[in-house]
């Protein structure tokens, strides 16, 4: 397999999927996180437990959900509970190992903005808002973020902190008594970043094949740090690509050529 044989979206999704351990309980956001989590379930992690904020626990969707409450999630779940119960007993209750999120903007400490670009009162662009992210960011055992990398998205300073990553770094989460560990990885279409163990600043630890450090610097507004020894992301396997493409094909067919945003 050569870098040209897959898209940047595909390697992002595959690299994210690989981070999920079999058996992990994942609280899954819609879109990229849901695609990656289901890819994990269909490849190396058949016993992964997918929880969606609308209420399904143990969902095993045959096609990717377009919205967070698709019927297919309910039909394939071990059970479906109310939305309050999902947030109270399951997420806040500490039953979720991994919160799997996307974001519009992220900063060097993996804090995220999904609320507004510009001033809150006089917004340039009004984004959808928090959804379940503030509670996931607080309470999930750990958080994995997946989003495309660009200088507009990876910014020096967030216009709005919707959901916390590592705040201003160091032991800030512990000082605020946040139950979960916060972001442990950010997967983009270019690379994988992990927080520095001490400072918690995001550090590129792994490049996707064919990607240069320069490409990553250009797609990051702040001066991004790189680990001394950079790994390279393993190429997508034939199986990974086949299963991902098959999943997306089934989804397109079922949703009438719509794709999950």
């Amino acid at each position, binding site marked *: 397999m050569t870098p040209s044989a897959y898209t940047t979206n595909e390697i992002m999704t595959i690299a994210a999927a690989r981070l999920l351990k079999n058996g992990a309980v994942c609280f899954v956001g819609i879109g990229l996180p849901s695609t990656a989590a289901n890819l994990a379930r269909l490849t190396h992690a058949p016993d992964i437990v997918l929880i969606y904020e609308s209420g399904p626990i143990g969902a095993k969707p045959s096609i990717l959900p377009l919205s967070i409450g698709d019927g297919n999630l309910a039909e394939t779940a071990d059970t479906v509970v109310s939305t*309050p119960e999902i947030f109270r007993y399951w997420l*806040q209750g500490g039953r979720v190992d991994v919160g799997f999120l996307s974001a519009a903007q992220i900063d060097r400490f993996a804090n995220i903005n999904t609320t507004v670009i510009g001033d809150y009162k006089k917004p340039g662009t009004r984004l959808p808002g928090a959804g379940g992210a503030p509670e996931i960011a607080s309470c999930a055992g750990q958080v994995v973020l997946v989003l495309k990398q660009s200088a507009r998205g990876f910014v020096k300073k967030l216009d709005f902190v919707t959901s916390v990553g590592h705040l201003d770094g160091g032991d800030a989460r512990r000082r605020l008594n946040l139950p979960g560990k916060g972001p442990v990885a950010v997967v983009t279409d270019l690379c994988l970043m992990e927080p520095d163990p001490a400072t918690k600043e995001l550090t590129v630890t792994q490049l996707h094949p064919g990607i240069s450090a320069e490409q990553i610097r250009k797609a990051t507004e702040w001066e991004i740090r790189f680990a001394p020894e950079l790994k390279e992301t393993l190429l997508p396997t034939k199986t990974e690509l086949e299963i991902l493409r098959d999943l997306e094909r089934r989804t397109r067919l079922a949703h009438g050529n719509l794709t999950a945003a």
Partner: protein
Amino acid sequence: MAEITTLREAIAGLVRDGDVVAMEGFTHLIPFAAGHEVLRQQRRNLTLVRMTPDVIYDQLIGAGCAKKLIFSWGGNPGVGSLHRLRDAVEHDWPAPLEIQEHGHGDLANAYVAGASNLPFAVLRAYAGSDLPKHNDKIKFIQCPFTGESLAAVPSIRPDVTVIHAQKSDRKGNILLWGILGVQKEAVLAAKRAIVTVEEIVDELNAWPNACILPHWTISAVCRVPGGGFPSYAHGYYERDNRFYQAWDAVARDRDTFQKWIKAHILDTDNFEEFRQVLAESVSQET
């Protein structure tokens, strides 16, 4: 005590200008028919509450029914922005829209507190988030036993909650299943409740511990088959994803939006006629 009546009468009698109105349904069972009827009857100055405003509130906001929105995620699921919501927030069109913004867990807890007749809910959230800076309804309190700091939010107590469900029996007992969302809590938190249902049956034949809202918690029950369209009703019909995608183009432009609302809602008599007009306009497009 539930009165079984028409949707027109239910909205006319139970939804008033200036009310706090919650229309709930988490992707599933969104009460579109009831929302349209509120729009058709041109209610004004509503405070709309909904975790996920969705296309239903985009329509009401664009049509000028709302003065305030209490919400936690305002997008067109799987498509993108709610352009009417954004236009109201970004450009005050057709009128300024006050927003009160929360997280999902927060609003879900606030409905639970409302259903429980508590004035506030307690949750673990918002430490470090900017949301409390822009929403004075989010405060922090201390646990009286451990001293821990926790977020507190006021309960939601709508004047009227509107939901769509699968079934009612002839007394007005409501059965719903599948993705339950916060519908039960939203109904029990409210002073009045309107439920549209796919069908009214002699016997619910509910399974053990089924999600049932007894008739004495409901003000009006209205039979509106397909009343959740373009969302879905588990066991009845699927989500019309094409409608959601098509809505993006309709809502993007003020003029297109206004014409659509006039032709499809204001100029139609009821949800059935809306479906007919919509079917005609869709067939013309293709």
